[in-house]
């Protein structure tokens, strides 16, 4: 049984200038332990899809299940079994790291002692032990991102959604993060759905790539299958493949994270 499965998932926003169809019907599925890459130009509907799959936004069409829970009828179950790390993270810069991790554990209904132990464990796993008592605002970019991910892992979710996890990181921190995602899959069988603008990242990290464009799935498959089919050969660059699929370039100018 797939851990993530959507069928015709859609979201239309009603704005002053008429309806905007941000997501027009997405079908996708991910198996246990799969790392699925979500690729697409800015505004393609990646974040909107993630926000629907994490119960933040109600779909206006279609259905989805996450970790066996139906999105519409059991949002509480979805929340309990999945983790979400947004582009903007979501920690208060004035609060110490330990307190944020502890509160997060309690939000996931862990008893106090267990939440404290889990905070230590996460800090140890993600290399944050030395900064536990510093305010979140004092962390480096890489540490901040690892903290964001630690927050999403607090309850050992079966499914983890990462929205542009490596945007703004230096190459070393980026490699560390890839390692971390692979470790999650290898050690815990976590299913990971991540969005990215970096083609090399999708190539190196993801088992399968879903390219979305203008709110629908434009192509999907392994990186080599996509290259072969859209780029013409296995040696085709993912950049040309991406261009062939979407008819335009991947995000070029704005790689800065956008507030959600």
């Amino acid at each position, binding site marked *: 049984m797939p851990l993530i499965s959507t069928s015709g998932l859609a979201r239309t926003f009603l704005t002053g200038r008429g309806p905007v169809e941000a997501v027009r019907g997405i079908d996708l599925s991910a198996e246990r332990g799969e790392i699925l890459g979500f690729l697409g130009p800015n505004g393609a509907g990646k974040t909107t899809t993630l*926000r629907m799959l*994490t*119960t*933040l*936004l*109600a779909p206006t069409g279609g259905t989805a299940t996450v970790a066996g829970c139906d999105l519409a009828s059991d949002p*509480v179950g979805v*929340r*309990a079994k*999945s*983790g*979400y790390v*947004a*582009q*903007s*993270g*979501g*920690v*208060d*810069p*004035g*609060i110490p790291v330990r*307190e944020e991790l502890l*509160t*997060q554990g*309690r*939000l*996931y*209904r862990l008893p106090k002692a267990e939440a404290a132990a889990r905070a230590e464990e996460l800090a140890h796993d993600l290399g944050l032990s030395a900064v536990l008592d510093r305010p979140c605002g004092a962390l480096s970019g890489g540490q901040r991102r690892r903290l964001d991910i630690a*927050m999403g892992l607090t*309850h050992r979710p079966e499914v983890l959604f990462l929205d542009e996890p490596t945007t703004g990181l230096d190459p070393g921190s980026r490699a560390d993060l890839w390692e971390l995602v692979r470790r999650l899959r290898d050690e815990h069988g976590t299913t990971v759905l991540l969005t990215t603008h970096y083609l090399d990242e999708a190539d190196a990290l993801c088992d399968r790539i879903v390219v979305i464009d203008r709110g629908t799935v434009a192509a999907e498959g392994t990186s080599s299958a996509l290259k072969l089919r859209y780029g013409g050969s296995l040696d085709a660059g993912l950049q040309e493949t991406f261009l062939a699929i979407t008819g335009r370039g991947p995000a070029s100018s704005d790689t800065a994270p956008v*507030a*959600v």
Partner: protein
Amino acid sequence: MQALLSDTALIFGRYARQTLQSRFQMLFGVLMPLLYLLFFGPLLTGLPLAPGASSWQVLVPGLLLQLGLFGAAFAGFSIIIEKNLGVVERMRVTPVSRLALLLGRTLRDTALFLFQAVLLVLAAIAMGLRAPLAGVLIGFAFTALLTLSLSCLSYALALRVRTPQEFGPVVNAVTMPSMLLSGLMLPMALAPGWLDLLSHLMPLRYLVDAMRDAYLGRYATAGMLYGTLVATAFLTLALVVGTRVFRRAGA
């Protein structure tokens, strides 16, 4: 229910700790009413504002509600900042009770403004206020009810708007007329007929009238009944609106 209570306590604790760390936040709210007490209160001492009452018994209830009005109405600012930091969404993807996200915050605000109300009453006693203890306690209860309701509505509004620039003007447009039309500074009994009539449309007026009765030791009055009814109805309305906004996703 159990989950709602423990979630509310958790959220309350988070924001109470934040407040306790900031002396500025703890004391700033009391500054404006305190200035009125010090520099406006003495102007009233010789005036016959209400039969058988000192001017302090008339002014202090108004200042307490002013404290609650201006403090709680702006409470939503903090959630706009948290929304931009991603904190609100990060909490919303956890199983935490949606209502607790609201109640934890409003209870922190209520505790904060009650603390400031006590400071204000102590200062007023030093300035010359004399009122029965029961009346003063009833006054705190009304302050708490107003704070709860207003901060609830303030968070609901703040969750719906995108920027502080949209939030501030709306709140100002509500608070200033509320203060003037409810007779917080001077009793509406002094007003010409049309103004008095207009002020009866302002819910806050009933609270301040009831509190003034309480400060005079008159507990079984029509004013007390109306005040209690209006305060309770307002709180119910605020909780309904607040709950609806916090339950709905996509905020």
